[in-house]
């Protein structure tokens, strides 16, 4: 088990009139090499939870174990932990601060105290991994990049630490459709080519349904469901109850089913839904033909 969370609780503004508990006993397991999606309505505690996974928060109630080491006992080695678990925040491009792409990506590896040539090697491979040609982009000024490019530079900045786990907090927020596609493709590639364990937090069910092996649903500070996207999205009623809504395709298919169409409701993509409906037509046609 790579990451194990047990009974984790968290309150913001503890001891003030604004105290606000957001996590109420979260249990979570993540295996090496998994591609996990973390979804939940706003205020469900997703962003808080992921900050526990790389030691930005230290558990007061509950435990977090990463790679066999309890985060509470790892206090002096938090940097090691952060290197192991890379966290890409929402709007990560806002954290860029250097003039050029190469310098900014080098910030992480330099913090690790690596020698110059190793830093350079890591910068190049991180840029390549996010689909930016190092030769072209290394010396570009950051302000001259597009929004999607900036975001990929920021992701490269975390990748350059050579983490085993990458956590993305809503990585497609605020991007145009093309930017979204590029980021999603990048994440998919990182998972398959670099053997990274990926935790993907998203508000877009459509994005997540296509990408992950397993979905974890967080609501009101607890994990309420975990399973393959198909399993989770088949719980139409439960998903509606927690205010998550469901995939548009699942929505359409379940309405068709209500009207007596013999279709499976768990189509995760438009293509799948299309095939399902066509199959239904074919069945109907051949049935009528026989009569």
């Amino acid at each position, binding site marked *: 088990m790579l990451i194990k969370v047990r009974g984790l609780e968290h309150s*913001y*503004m*503890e*001891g*003030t*009139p*604004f105290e606000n508990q957001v996590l109420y006993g979260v249990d979570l397991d993540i295996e090496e090499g998994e591609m996990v999606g973390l979804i939940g309505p706003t205020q469900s505690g997703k962003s808080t939870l992921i*900050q526990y996974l*790389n030691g*930005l*928060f230290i558990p007061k109630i509950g435990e977090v174990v990463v790679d066999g080491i309890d985060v509470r006992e790892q206090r002096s080695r938090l*940097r090691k932990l*952060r*290197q192991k678990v*890379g*966290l*890409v*925040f929402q709007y*990560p491009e*806002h*954290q*860029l*601060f250097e003039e050029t792409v190469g310098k900014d990506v080098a*910030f*992480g590896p330099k*913090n*690790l105290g690596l020698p110059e040539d190793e830093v350079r090697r890591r910068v190049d491979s991180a840029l390549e991994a996010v689909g930016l040609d190092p030769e072209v982009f290394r010396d570009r000024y950051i302000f001259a990049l597009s929004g999607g490019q900036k975001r990929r530079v920021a992701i490269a*900045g*975390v990748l350059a*630490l050579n983490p085993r786990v990458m956590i993305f907090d809503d990585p497609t927020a605020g991007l145009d459709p093309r930017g979204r596609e590029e980021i999603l493709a990048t994440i998919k590639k990182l998972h398959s080519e670099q053997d990274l364990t990926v935790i993907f937090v998203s508000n877009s069910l459509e994005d997540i349904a296509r990408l992950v092996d397993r979905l974890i649903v967080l609501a009101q500070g607890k994990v309420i469901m975990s399973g393959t996207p198909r399993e989770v999205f088949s719980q139409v009623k439960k998903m509606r109850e927690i205010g998550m809504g469901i995939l548009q395709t699942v929505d359409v298919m379940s309405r068709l089913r209500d009207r007596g169409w013999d279709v499976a409701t768990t189509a995760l993509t438009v293509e799948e839904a299309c095939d399902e409906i066509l199959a239904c037509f074919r069945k109907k046609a051949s049935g009528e033909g026989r009569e």
Partner: protein
Amino acid sequence: MELSKDITLGQYVPRDSVIHRLDPRTKIVLWMVLITVLFFIHTYTGYLVFALFILWVTHLAEIPVLYALRGLKPAIPFIIVLFIIQLLFSGSLFADSPNVVFQWGFVRITTDAIRTYSLIMIRVVLLFLSVTILTLATSLVGLTDGMENLLSIGRRIGIPANELAMVMVIALRFVPTLVDELEKIMKAQMARGALIDEGNFIQRTKQKIPILIPLLMSTFRRAEDLIVAMEARCYRGGKGRTKRRQLRLTALDYRAIGITAGFLVFLMAFIRLVPPPW
């Protein structure tokens, strides 16, 4: 890591207390008077009486005292260091004081110095607490309206009341926002292995750059957003603008003014009766 927990400046605790219900103008004026008076107190007992009054107001405002004092927490190291430096290097100011506690070279600590600087520290704490209570118990809208109304007296001599009030309120309003932003940026850089507050002075200063630059940029981004939002709502200052919520002094305000006046008279008498050093 959670920075916002210790920042009380610019926060507002919504309650329905008598203090909350006071006209903001009453609060601002009384608060200014109290703060002025604070600078005329030179005895421990005087400060004690003042502190009791402020604590009573805090209690009336239904604000936990510990929360109000919380904002002081980040400043405690500065206050202590300042206190020590003053004690160590102000020997010459108290050269004629006979009550020497400790002397070593030019370091000369006298009871008079200890007294003077202790009083200053107490004053700083009380000043902070008073300001905090005002902002914790007054909504931003109230604060703006009150300030604008009070400043409008000077409109004839060209004081842009609305604009000044707006500037002050925006500044206050953005304290919590920028604290959140700062926290996010610090965390993002820590996630990239950044060190914070480690090593010698030069290293520490260098460690601030990856945090300050993004913070500066986001401040400008927010400022620009705010400008656009104000323009979109046709903001053009206070000229010709009327208010839906008219400020009106009520019996509660007169009572507050009376009580504060009574307290000040008592305080003055008390200071006379209990002369220094206590």
